[in-house]
């Protein structure tokens, strides 16, 4: 059973805000409640400004947690009005946050070999996950992106090894990260896979995992309003016999077993 503990902290201190790539920022807030409770794969719903436009909060996956210090970090890309305003938020000011929200990754593994596959900003929650899993498991990361400057900072991932792929060849393998995963799976049979990134990447990984019969958890992205299962805005199609039911990305997810998700026509 997942313990339900969510907090609303209207005045979380911004400890640092740094630009770490092309339109990519790393934001750290002091929020002991969230830092204590957060599980990898969960997200924080954050107001980008105190005004009413943009009106809604923005969901950000948790990238780093320093439990003792009570710090929580996010890695985000400026894509619109909300993230643009967020990128202007200065150290020493306060942000209105809600979290940790959603169901995170299943991490109760021990002595297993696992692969993490992240694309673009989807790498961020897998870094938090990898750090947790690496305590008791053998972890291999696979990070992909359009370019090195479009990915989260990776220096923090020294807890476990990773392979890199970029579409422009600026770092690691030139090409898609899924190509690296496919090669790896020809030699290795991991016990479990975890993925987060663009939907086509997830669909490709889901197909690979299915063909090799390796359990896979995916973290999905969606436009959200409430973040807590109230508005039914972020639903996604459910696979299988129970397909009349739909999945709420914010509450049932954002992490799902790959076989729960309807991938029809995508892979």
């Amino acid at each position, binding site marked *: 059973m997942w313990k339900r503990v969510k907090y609303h902290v209207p005045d979380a201190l911004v400890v640092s805000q740094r630009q770490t790539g092309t339109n990519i920022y790393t934001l750290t807030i002091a929020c002991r409640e969230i830092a204590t409770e957060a599980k990898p794969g969960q997200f924080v719903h954050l107001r980008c400004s105190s005004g009413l436009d943009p*009106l809604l909060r923005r969901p950000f996956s948790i990238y780093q947690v320093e439990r003792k210090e009570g710090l929580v970090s996010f890695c985000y890309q400026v894509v619109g009005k909300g993230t643009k305003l967020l990128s202007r938020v200065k150290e020493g000011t306060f942000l209105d946050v809600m979290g940790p929200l959603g169901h995170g990754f299943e991490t109760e593994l021990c002595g297993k070999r696992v692969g993490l596959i992240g694309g673009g900003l989807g790498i961020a929650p897998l870094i938090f996950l990898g750090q947790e899993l690496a305590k008791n498991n053998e972890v291999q990361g696979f990070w992909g992106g359009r370019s090195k400057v479009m990915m989260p900072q990776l220096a923090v991932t020294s807890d476990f090894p990773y392979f890199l792929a970029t579409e422009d060849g600026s770092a690691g393998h030139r090409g898609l990260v899924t190509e690296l995963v496919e090669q790896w799976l020809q030699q290795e049979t991991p016990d479990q896979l975890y993925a987060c990134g663009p939907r086509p990447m997830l669909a490709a990984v889901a197909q690979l995992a299915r063909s090799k019969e390796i359990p896979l958890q995916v973290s999905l992205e969606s436009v959200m309003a409430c973040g807590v299962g109230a508005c039914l805005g972020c639903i996604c199609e459910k696979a299988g016999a129970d397909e009349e039911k739909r999945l709420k990305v914010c509450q049932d997810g954002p992490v799902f077993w790959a076989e729960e998700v309807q991938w029809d026509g995508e892979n």
Partner: protein
Amino acid sequence: MEKIEQVDLSVNLAGLKLKNPVMTASGTCGFGEAYEDFFSPAALGALVVKGVTLQPRKGNPTPRLVETAAGLLNAIGLENPGVETVLAEYLPPLASYNVPVIVNISGNTLEEYGELAARLSTCSVVKGIEVNISCPNVKEGGIAFGSHPATAAKVVRVVKANTDLPVIVKLSPNVTDIVEMALAVEEAGADALSLINTLLGMAIDIKKRQPILANVTGGLSGPAVKPVAVRMVWQVAQRVKIPLIGLGGIVTAADALEFIMAGATAIAVGTGQFVNPRCCVEVIAGLAEYCRANEVKKISELRGVAWNGGK
């Protein structure tokens, strides 16, 4: 100067005694559980739960949401598990909150509205029925019943014939004459009105050159619609005898006070909860604070006080 220690926030809504005038708007808090980690539904004047239909509804495809300037367009399409599951699983746990529960209903036909009212009246938790004749996001029923005074009145008569509970009618702002609609449903026996449901709107993705919502159009809510809602409450409250629940863009106690001064007996918070999960309880506290600061003993004294200034 007399200092007011205890402010009376209670209001009487068509025989329902509410401890304060703050309610949730249907479809913005699930069945009360969604915001439980942030506030207890027991703090509310009343809990209005997600819209219910006779059969389960899958709702519309995605995208169902798009944010607009100070607003939110939604086209959820009344996704809900159907009245049978709602009665069996969702409503019984609400008894523990000790708060009046109002269930919002939508039918495809007059008979469905009647059956929904009858079945929900058998549940002791339910203290009122809110009749949705104003959902802009479903093909049948919904707004089709709320666009013509005579049709709306028929729905109200059928619902009234099937329940002894107070019947609240949620009106659409997407009509030529809101007063005419209000008078028609009052005449048909409505015990209270909710004003307003969402405004029909749409948004276009200029990169893809197509509508953003899968349903093409959606209902606009949030602060962007508040002036329209306040105006409609103002117009209707001065013409009907039944009480009004004002809603549309309420985020703060100041917003709520505008509705009350325009003539609303109670108010509901909808999209505001998405902005601030503690919006409802902060509005309640803010109303009490306003009353104390302005020597208002009973919140009900403020209902319609702005009318004098509008003559």
